[in-house]
């Protein structure tokens, strides 16, 4: 950024903005809108040639020609922002897309990549180059097919934010290579067919995982939060499905909605409780409307010191959870009265 601004002219302030600043503004816009600024005045005629962004919807057979023409007219190779939207509908993948896209990511030194793609052929991957870039800081990926990448494919040393929106049926462990391949990752956010929402935040001091699952048919909701210090990183255990290794962490589980026979939520709940049996802190809230289960096999919580129970009524099958914690020191128990939405009925520890 250069600055030679002297004095305080009250009018035409934008003329004091350098081309760099103007290009930075335009880099947030779709490329066609950046091109449209050439009509503003003579000064603006060629500004778009230097905008460090490539931002196109590519949902027509002619789209690629537009992108090619755009690339050929530009006077800079720098592309900080790259957004390509191949649309909601499957569209035949052009054979040379991998090639030019790799070139753009490499030569343009792309930092922010936003890519959405829907393809019929589930065996194909998005261009590999986007998983091995040293420059990408933000990666936003929307794909409709199963996204399982071998571990050697993902190497994103600069990535801090990773959003994956996956309509396909990728299991969570399918994403673990993204996690291992991105050591600088601060926010990892996943949406899939199975998990409504998964957010992992890794700050300098703490780590927080937020998982939400919803089933549309029974309107049941399952929410899991795990928090720990940075040096007790539990995320690898999460991806390897070995949550039984997690001890020094706070776990918050909430279930709500109408839960009918053999609901997936209930199954998941019992599974997660079993997996998380070694934690020291557990907050468990059960607000489901229906509960026609016999007492499920509750695991023994060997290390549990603190337990918070929020139950809809005392008939809840999780009422006996406290009896499964031999080391329990701090117990808080609340029964929710269904006439109230809050925690009005507070029972003392027993």
């Amino acid at each position: 950024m250069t600055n030679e601004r002297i004095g305080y002219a009250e009018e035409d302030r934008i003329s004091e903005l350098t081309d760099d600043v103007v290009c930075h503004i335009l880099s947030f816009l779709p490329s066609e809108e950046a091109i449209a600024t050439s009509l503003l005045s003579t000064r603006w005629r060629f500004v778009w040639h230097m905008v460090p962004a490539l931002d196109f919807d590519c949902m027509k057979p002619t789209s690629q020609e537009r992108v090619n023409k755009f690339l050929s007219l530009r006077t800079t190779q720098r592309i900080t922002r790259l957004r390509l939207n191949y649309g909601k509908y499957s569209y035949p993948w052009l054979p040379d897309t991998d090639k030019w896209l790799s070139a753009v990511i490499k030569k343009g030194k792309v930092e922010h990549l936003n890519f959405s793609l829907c393809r019929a052929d589930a065996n194909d991957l998005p261009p590999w180059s986007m998983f091995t870039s040293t420059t990408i800081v933000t990666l936003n990926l929307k794909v409709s097919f199963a996204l399982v990448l071998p571990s050697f494919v993902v190497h994103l040393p600069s990535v801090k934010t990773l959003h994956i929106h996956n309509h396909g049926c990728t299991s969570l462990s399918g994403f673990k290579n993204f996690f291992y391949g991105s050591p600088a990752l601060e926010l990892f956010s996943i949406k899939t067919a199975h998990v409504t929402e998964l957010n992992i935040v890794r700050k300098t001091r703490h780590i927080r995982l937020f998982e939400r699952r919803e089933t549309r048919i029974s309107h049941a909701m399952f929410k899991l939060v795990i928090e720990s210090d940075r040096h007790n990183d539990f995320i690898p255990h999460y991806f390897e499905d070995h949550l039984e290794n997690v001890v020094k962490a706070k776990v918050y589980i909430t279930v709500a909605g109408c839960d009918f026979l053999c609901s997936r939520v209930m199954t998941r709940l019992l599974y997660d409780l079993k997996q998380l049996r070694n934690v020291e802190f557990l907050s468990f809230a059960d607000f489901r409307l229906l509960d026609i289960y016999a007492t499920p096999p509750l695991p023994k919580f060997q290390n549990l010191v603190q337990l918070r129970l929020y139950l809809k009524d005392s008939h809840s099958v999780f009422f006996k959870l406290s009896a499964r914690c031999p080391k329990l020191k701090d117990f808080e128990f609340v029964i929710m009265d269904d006439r109230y939405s809050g925690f009005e009925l507070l029972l003392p520890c027993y």
Partner: protein
Amino acid sequence: MAEETESTKTEPLKTAEEEFKKLEITEEEESELKLETSDHVTFMVEASIAMKFGAVQQYLEVSPAASASATAIPLHNVASRELILILEYYRMHDWVDAGERDLKEFDERFLKDLNYEELKELLLAANYLNVEKLFNFLTKSIANIIRNKDVEFVRTFFGIDNDYTPEEEAAYREENAWAGVKFV
């Protein structure tokens, strides 16, 4: 600290105390820098925030003595009105306890309180100061304002005089037709 007299201190306690002492020292050391705006108002700014300003860094590289002395670092192209806003933004974003939602709400409010002129003034100041985060936030916000707007709106927003002849304008519309640009 009363516990210091006790001889039966356990190891973890000691380290905790040391940590505490270290914290105290760093708090004392949290120095301030004197900044002077173009309208000759001086500000005492936490060094941790002032050092985020590229212009301040650059100034201190050239004359390192300024950080210790009482001389103010001059910011020739930033008025006090803008510096107050910039400091408000950075103090909020530097605040350890600020959650993502707090920051989002803050950003929205911050933007709502600015009219177009103030927004552009602030962008010029942010550009001069070389403050990356605020610069990105402002440029992105301006992009959102001009998004999907017609040519006239963008000209007015930026204060641009159209110096094209009608023939030229028609020719350039034609020239860029390949991009599928929606010209209004």
